[in-house]
């Protein structure tokens, strides 16, 4: 009974309060999202992976760093669910702790990159003129470098490690966001509703922050989820080259890198972190696709 009334409250055509209108809109988006089962599957996988990473200390069966040289390169068994690596460390535990590092890097990159790209793009698009030219040329410079090479150069200049890998990936990942936000802003800034907001006497910052950026958010959100997989792969690439997380720390890319010698005889050692990266990338892509369908007003 209370479930149906809550549903009615959310779907009401005549919301009575600000909060009801806001929640109603979110609920509608959720309903639209829920209809796309692939996207829902993507969301479930992403949530599951994040939970596994967060609760790694509880779920891990072994210490991810503990070496057991007598037990190296074991196939999956009851004692070691995913087998052991070349130093006899438990792969399942390393995968869980590796998820913390890898997914943590992805989240950190996104938190750095999305707002930076959004602000640069919206300001450039809204201001136009000289400021636009300067900001966009800077963006072009970053865009012109191959992503991995630039990241490599940054990491090489700093000391290899998770933090510098995050900064390096962030520095190479923001330009597409700025471009996207600028393109959106260019179409938004000449609309009557922005003219109407300017007519209220609002400052430029207020117009950009309160009225332009919300319109850019959907496409940026989608772009972020689609980018997550390539961030994982870049992080893995840096790890693979020994420039990301350093050896004792488990990280999916590094795990593959160090185990690549065993691909023929003990194939499960490198393949298991590979599957983890693949699953995470796929889940983020499915989620991104679903979000685009729901959030993009032009699609409806």
């Amino acid at each position, binding site marked *: 009974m209370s479930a149906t009334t809550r549903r009615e409250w959310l779907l009401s055509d005549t919301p*009575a309060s600000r909060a009801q209108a806001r929640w109603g809109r979110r609920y509608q988006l959720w309903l639209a999202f829920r209809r796309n089962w692939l996207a829902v599957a993507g969301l479930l996988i992403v949530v599951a992976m994040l939970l596994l990473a967060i609760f790694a200390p509880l779920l891990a069966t072994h210490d991810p760093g503990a070496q057991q040289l007598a037990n190296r390169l074991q196939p999956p068994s009851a004692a070691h669910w995913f087998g052991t690596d070349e130093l006899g460390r438990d792969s399942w535990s390393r995968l869980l702790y590796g998820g913390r590092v890898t997914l943590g890097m992805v989240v950190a990159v996104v938190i750095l990159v999305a707002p930076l790209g959004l602000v640069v793009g919206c300001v450039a698009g809204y201001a136009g003129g000289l400021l636009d030219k300067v900001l966009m040329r800077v963006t072009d410079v970053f865009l012109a470098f191959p992503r991995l090479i630039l990241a490599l150069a940054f990491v090489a200049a700093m000391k290899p490690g998770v933090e510098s890998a995050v900064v390096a990936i962030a520095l190479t990942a923001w330009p597409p966001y700025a471009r996207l936000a600028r393109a959106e802003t260019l179409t938004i800034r000449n609309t009557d509703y922005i003219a*109407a907001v300017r007519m209220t006497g609002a400052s430029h910052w207020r117009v950009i922050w309160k009225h332009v950026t919300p319109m850019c958010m959907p496409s940026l959100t989608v772009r972020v989820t689609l980018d997550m997989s390539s961030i994982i792969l870049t992080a893995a690439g840096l790890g693979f080259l020994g420039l990301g997380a350093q050896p004792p720390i488990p990280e999916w890319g590094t795990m593959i890198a160090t185990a690549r010698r065993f691909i023929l005889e003990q194939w499960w050692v490198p393949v298991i972190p590979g599957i983890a990266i693949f699953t995470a990338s796929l889940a983020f892509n499915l989620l991104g696709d679903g979000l685009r369908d729901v959030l993009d007003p032009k699609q409806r």
Partner: protein
Amino acid sequence: MSQLPMIAIEHLDVHFGSSHVVRDISFSVAAGETFGLVGESGSGKSTVLRTIAGLNPGWDGRMAVAGQNLGPRRDRAFFRRVQMVFQDPYGSLHPRQTVDRILAEPLEVHGIADAEARIARALEEVALPHTARFRYPHQLSGGQRQRVAIARALIADPSVLLLDEPTSALDVSVQAEVLNLLSDLREARQLTCILVSHNLAVIAHLCERLAVMQGGRIVEILSEAELRAGRAKHSHTQDLIALSYELEG
């Protein structure tokens, strides 16, 4: 004209890049008067309005509102005094904001207190039901949206209202309702208005005086009575009047 005009425009020129869109335009509007700008598309009538509103930067000449000369940038006080209603009610409301949020924006910008009561009163004034308050623009009809736009323009108590084809995107029955609303509000709030339209009948209905524009120039300024009596001197005005009668049937 004993007192200072509310709006005075002298020798206004507007350029968009290399094209000269408005050429040497002068007119003035007395306080409480409604002045019409009529012309075909491309005559520059909307450009004049947007330039007064501060939405076009490239202009020369002198413009004054309530005796104060307008500079290249408008201050907040200007926007408190002058407001605008746009042509397309589908495009002039932010698609992701509720009516409540749209109406609250001018109040927040100007730091006006008792938003709650003012929004409720504004909705009442434009005859929108209270249930419309938390709806999104796409949930409203064209006429309702234009009422929201009018409510937004009036919520900070301006004295000048610029109307850019406020009814041309609406059905005739809705147009009648909006025109009635505008004349009521103008009466009640002593507004000074400039109305831009391509429709002579709409202009004649609301305005006391009007300027006929062609190719960026004002070809003639005449009173509503002169318009209705067909006492136009310029041939373009005569053409427009003849056409208007023809279409009335």
